């Protein structure tokens, strides 16, 4: 029996593969947050000003905040359907460390919700008249920042997964926590615009990412155990 | 000690060197804040004890009814 037992990495990849498979079968879950992101960004020029000078100023902030909102909306599905159909219990009862299984779910969530947003961001940056030299920094900062939001948001989702109607509680919990990411992400872009090096901010974000990767899944795993209890 | 008092008239005292509104609002706010967070828990305790008492007398009544009907 023990000889047939899977390694943790096999369980990790099986979970990753399964979540990606589910995401591609339920295309709405990928497409809607993505569309939401694009629509919210397009509303800003209409609401504020079509002048490119003013748009340049707010571009990084607008993109970052829209990313935040979109990622929060897409988080809702991270554990909910698994909780409802009982797959979450199976996940908790695996002999492998829950840390890695939760990490697999977070990675797959980022791949389907975070990555598309990062990839489309230069296009939206162009529409918001962000100067070309800042594209690289914007994409890099989003590349580092969106996984942090997925990992940290996952804790809040795990805590609220048992709630029948959770309404906006997820937003109330997660949004304040994303302040540091928002600050460093926008500062990085801003400093590029002021022809300074954004490397300091980006490396800080890298530190934050590595801390979140090593700690957030632990908290998510504990939160899942509490919610399923 | 009285020398240390910073005011000679009541008007001056309320005026606070021109910042009367801000200074007095802060102290009023602080007083309300302290009062609320002391009075509410205190009144809640009375309420809890009243409720528990009512509950206990009810329970005792139910108990005695059960006992008499059981015989």
């Amino acid at each position: 029996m023990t000889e047939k037992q899977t390694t943790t990495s096999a369980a990790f990849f099986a979970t990753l593969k399964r979540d990606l498979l589910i995401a591609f079968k339920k295309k709405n879950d990928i497409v809607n947050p993505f569309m939401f992101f694009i629509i919210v960004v397009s509303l800003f020029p209409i609401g504020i000003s079509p002048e490119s000078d003013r748009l340049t100023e707010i571009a990084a902030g607008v993109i970052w905040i829209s990313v935040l909102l979109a990622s929060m909306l897409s988080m809702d599905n991270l554990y909910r359907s698994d909780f409802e159909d009982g797959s979450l219990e199976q996940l908790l009862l695996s002999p492998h460390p829950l840390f890695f299984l939760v990490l697999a779910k977070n990675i797959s969530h980022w791949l389907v919700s975070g990555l598309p947003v990062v990839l489309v961001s230069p296009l939206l940056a162009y529409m918001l008249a962000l100067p070309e030299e800042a594209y690289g920094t914007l994409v890099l900062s989003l590349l580092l920042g969106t996984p942090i939001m997925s990992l940290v948001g996952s804790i809040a989702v795990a805590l609220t997964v048992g709630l029948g109607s959770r309404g906006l509680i997820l937003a109330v919990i997660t949004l304040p926590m994303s302040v540091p990411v928002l600050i460093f992400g926008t500062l990085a872009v801003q400093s590029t615009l002021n022809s300074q090096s954004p490397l300091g901010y980006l490396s800080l974000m890298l530190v934050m990412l590595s801390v979140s990767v090593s700690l957030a899944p632990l908290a998510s795993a504990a939160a899942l155990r509490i919610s399923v209890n | 000690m009285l020398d240390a008092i910073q005011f000679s008239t009541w008007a001056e005292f309320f005026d606070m060197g021109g910042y009367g509104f801000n200074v007095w609002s802060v102290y009023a706010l602080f007083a309300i804040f302290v009062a609320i967070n002391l009075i509410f828990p205190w009144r809640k305790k009375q309420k809890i004890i009243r409720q528990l008492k009512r509950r206990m007398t009810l329970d005792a009544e139910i108990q005695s009814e059960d006992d008499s009907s059981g015989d």
Partner: protein
Amino acid sequence: MSSAAPTTSSNFDTDKIMLTARELFCARDDRVLFKNLNFDLPEGQVLQVQGSNGSGKTTLMRILCGLNDSYEGSIKWYGQEIEDQAASFFSSLLYIGHRVGVSKVLTPVENLRWSCSLKQAVSDEQIMAALKEVGLRGFEESPCYTLSAGQQQRVSLARLIISPASLWVLDEPFTTLDTKGVALLENILQRQAHEGGSVMVTTHHSLSIPELTVLSLG
């Protein structure tokens, strides 16, 4: 309020006793679900947990699996604390709850590939054979939302066939099954007992399994 006497005599060797529960106590929101609950689960036995609605059957099952930790008392796995040998316990445990753990968007094969690989390596041939045995031949590649509740239950039963786990904890596995399904499951349970594994099952059915003992709650 509810208590249950030990239903199995302790004539067995202690190393043959898989699961030992002593002095279990569980209260939820001031209501005592069970107290002073003792039982042993030896190898090769099917233990049916009975009790009226709300008597804490599901809670007991979840406590045994470690999904619920709001209880007092001791649960031992081959005489040792579960925390000390979590890996061995969880790889020997198979749990099917009210929510059977079948994702509706995935096909039965995809579901089993994932849920089985959380515990042990499994080949597609094994999955196909198991699905055939539970009577889902021809449904292997259709998404589970097209299947009936009973058929989804059968997908989860396929895990029992594939799994080498020695302890099964099944919460109401019979509810959505038809007569054929009930017979099939009884058969599977009996096979598990013969092979030296053991089963804890909650159900209101009266099971016709020789290895059966009954634990009453409430």
